[in-house]
């Protein structure tokens, strides 16, 4: 239980962000933005809320989000046109969705009076063709509530945590506390299973059985919710309070031959009604008692809770320290100080210390991926249940540490990928048997650290990608021309194209093909890459490669049009000083670089950034061969390259705004700012030239 409220919290935190994005998108739409990207953004937000809400069985939320999403999907595929009325309904739907999220968070029932009219209005846009089951589903949930309300007035919960329960670090105290919050409760404990001889005491075993009687409780939903994360880790019995308590209701006791010993009764929660726990044997708690049994899995790890903002401030300050250190080194090199001076030795020490502090501070932000993986396990289990497939889920490298932001922002993409793997990757049991594979599929989630990067792999042993089908779908959806010649890798990459979905039917699980699009965007924003490798019949592996930290980057320092700039090393394949024979002209301005028999387009970086045109020929310049996700290869023409170094990445967004082709800025040793090139953007729009802007620049300089 210890980690589970925090998972729910994380979900609601993410929902808040998604709702902000949703509201922004809707506002933009209202203000006249009709481009696909805006609609897509709104759609994605709703879809992500639906997906995550599904994982927590928030049925009202899922039902509503589904309908909302369906309308947006119609809009996205131009089957609906934007008009005043639609915009108004969408706006209201956005509000209702936010309300539903809030209601779910505060655990209060949603206001149906508010929800139903909007649902009906949404339905009105869809006509009759919407999938009815979804709606019935919503109603079912409602009736269920009513039934329970009339039948039950109290519940008896009896649970006995298993060894695994404690091993996972759960704490019965928290469960009991939560149960007490449901209504007036009476707690009792059965300690007959306790070993008699202290020597036989296994402090990680669950010897105690708690029975909690809760009065005035209409449904057992609240109880199930409390136990939803641990129900497979303990013997749990929930029965209406008026059923007689049979002795058999107590869970099986394995170590019956063990008589009483002194022990601590870990009932630290006073029931709200303040009745003494009726069945509790009056046990004294001697200070020598093995108190550890309450939280055996919790080692004496002392941790510090710190406001993340403080850590970020520290990281910023350390970034400054590093920059300041290189400023000083550079100035000392220029000053005429004899090489023999002690100063340089001291400077080296300074350098070392600064790096050490930086590493230390970065380590504060690092978090193990374990909680993330735990959450994914749950999603995988649910996906497996939902599809009726038998899937074993294996995780490796849970203790690999990743920057906090990365952990947070990976949740969404991983959810999509895992659902896809189970929904589309792993076959149904019969199919597996027919293919000579064990009926149970295996999904492996691995995290590891490889030379400055974190690699997260999601591997299934399913049928592998059906490339013929992917191709056919891409052609059908107009993503590629019917006669395109694509390599296997290029076909695999089609999975990430917006609006691509391999599922012929829309399932509640992995959705409508926004999934992989979202995955790719999310991972690219984190500075990472996704690769797919798939063997027909053997399975598919998605590998996500992410930088260790977002704050520091390896960059190549270059000079363009008199400005010092930085190109991320990760995108540079090689640097070339071309010969005249390597350059061929194409058209009026275009030039191609011939390299190992291939022709690669040359992008003049200065021109692309709107600097005055450079009269020098390519042979006087340096070409950086870059490879990006979007464009296979291209050569960036720059004036000069200097060296390779680690730079501290600063965002341009806060005080200025996004600049096309620039991903951020950094501060160089001389205290000046150098802009960081975004190779993807540069390569992608080898820009339609904006002559007006250019004229202004010429005038400015």
């Amino acid at each position, binding site marked *: 239980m210890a980690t589970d409220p925090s998972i729910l919290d994380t979900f609601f935190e993410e929902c808040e962000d998604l709702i902000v994005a949703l509201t922004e998108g809707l506002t933009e739409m209202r203000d006249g933005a009709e481009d696909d990207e805006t609609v897509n953004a709104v759609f994605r937000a709703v879809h992500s809320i639906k997906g995550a809400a599904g994982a927590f069985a928030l049925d009202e939320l899922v039902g509503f989000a589904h309908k909302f999403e369906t309308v947006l999907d119609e809009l996205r595929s131009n089957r609906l046109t934007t008009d005043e009325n639609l915009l108004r309904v969408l706006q209201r739907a956005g509000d209702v969705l936010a309300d539903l999220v809030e209601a779910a968070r505060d655990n209060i029932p949603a206001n149906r009076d508010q929800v139903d009219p909007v649902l009906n209005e949404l339905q009105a846009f869809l006509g009759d063709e919407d999938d009815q089951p979804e709606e019935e589903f919503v109603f079912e949930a409602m009736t269920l509530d009513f039934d329970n309300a009339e039948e039950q007035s109290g519940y008896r919960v009896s649970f006995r945590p298993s060894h695994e329960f404690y091993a996972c670090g759960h704490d019965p105290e928290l469960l009991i506390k939560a149960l007490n919050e449901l209504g007036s409760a009476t707690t009792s404990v059965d300690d007959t299973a306790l070993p008699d001889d202290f020597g036989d005491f296994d402090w990680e075993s669950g010897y105690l059985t708690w029975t909690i009687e809760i009065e005035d409780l209409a449904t057992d939903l609240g109880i199930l919710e409390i136990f939803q994360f641990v129900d497979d880790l303990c013997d749990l019995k929930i029965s209406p309070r008026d059923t007689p308590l049979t002795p058999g209701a107590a869970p099986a006791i394995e170590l019956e031959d063990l008589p009483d010993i002194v022990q601590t009764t870990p009932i630290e929660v006073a029931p709200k009604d303040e009745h003494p726990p009726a069945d509790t044997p009056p046990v004294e708690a001697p200070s020598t008692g093995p108190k550890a049994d309450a939280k055996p899995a919790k080692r004496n790890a002392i941790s510090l809770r710190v406001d993340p903002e403080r850590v970020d401030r520290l990281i910023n300050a350390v970034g400054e320290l590093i920059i300041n250190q290189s400023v000083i080194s550079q100035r000392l090199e220029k000053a005429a100080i004899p090489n023999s001076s002690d100063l340089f030795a001291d400077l080296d020490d300074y350098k070392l210390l600064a790096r050490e502090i930086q590493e230390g501070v970065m380590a504060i932000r690092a978090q193990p991926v374990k909680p993330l993986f735990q959450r994914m396990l749950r999603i995988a289990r649910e996906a497996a249940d939902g599809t009726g497939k038998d899937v074993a889920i294996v995780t490796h490298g849970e203790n690999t540490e990743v920057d906090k932001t990365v952990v947070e922002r990976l949740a969404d993409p991983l959810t999509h990928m895992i659902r896809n793997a189970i929904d589309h990757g792993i076959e149904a049991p019969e199919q597996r048997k027919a293919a000579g594979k064990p009926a149970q599929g295996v999904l492996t989630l691995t995290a590891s650290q490889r030379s400055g990067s974190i690699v997260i792999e999601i591997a299934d042993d399913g049928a592998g990608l059906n490339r013929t089908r992917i191709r056919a779908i891409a052609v059908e959806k107009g993503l590629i021309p019917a006669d395109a010649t694509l390599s296997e890798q290029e076909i695999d990459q089609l999975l990430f194209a917006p609006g691509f979905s391999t599922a012929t039917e829309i399932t509640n699980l992995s959705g409508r093909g926004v999934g992989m699009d979202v995955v790719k965007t999310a991972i690219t924003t984190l500075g990472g890459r996704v690769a797919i490798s798939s063997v027909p019949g053997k399975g598919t592996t998605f590998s996500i490669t992410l930088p260790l930290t977002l704050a520091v980057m390896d960059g190549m320092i270059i000079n363009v049009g008199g*400005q010092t700039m930085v190109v991320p090393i990760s995108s540079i394949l090689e640097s070339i000083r071309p010969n005249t024979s390597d350059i061929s002209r194409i058209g009026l301005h275009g030039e191609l670089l011939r390299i190992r028999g291939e022709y690669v387009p040359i992008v003049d970086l200065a021109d*692309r*950034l709107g600097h005055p045109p450079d009269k020098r020929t390519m042979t006087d310049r340096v070409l950086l061969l870059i490879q990006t996700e979007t464009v296979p290869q291209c050569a960036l023409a720059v004036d000069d390259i200097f060296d390779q170094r680690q730079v501290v990445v*600063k965002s*341009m967004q806060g*005080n200025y705004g*996004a600049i*096309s082709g620039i991903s951020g800025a950094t*501060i160089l040793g001389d205290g000046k700012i150098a802009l960081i090139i975004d190779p993807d953007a540069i390569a992608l729009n080898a820009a339609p030239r904006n002559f007006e802007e250019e004229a202004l620049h010429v005038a400015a300089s």
Partner: protein
Amino acid sequence: MSQQVEAPQAKQLEFVTLVAGGQNFCVEITQIREIRRWTPVTILPHSPFHVLGVINLRGAVIPIIDLAVKLGFEKIQPTERHVIIITAIEDRIVGLLVESVSEILGVSADMVRETPRGPEDPATRAIQGIIPVDDDMTKIINLGALMPSLDPVAA
């Protein structure tokens, strides 16, 4: 006694007076973070005419705006004698290049006059009031209105 004096008195305001495009202007002191000498900037690609570039202010990347251009005057040719006023406009930090900064002007709020409305002009649109000073007067620049959203360059 002191009560009698203070109660009817209007709020005291402080302004920093400056010269841009050869004219007197002032900015409320609460919006000003600091004043620096001109330092060369890093030019931003595709930036509007009034954006000179960015500078490093103790680790933060701060855009520098030519206030004269923004007010519709000739572009300032920056030299070491020119001054950058670092201002906080809402939650953004922006540097304004001006010709010079003269003094801190303390006036009571009732001294501020409304801007007489003449023909529309980039400068008058950004003036939220005028203050008579001796024989002359100075114009209060409304930074928020001057730079509603810092024209992030369209991609």
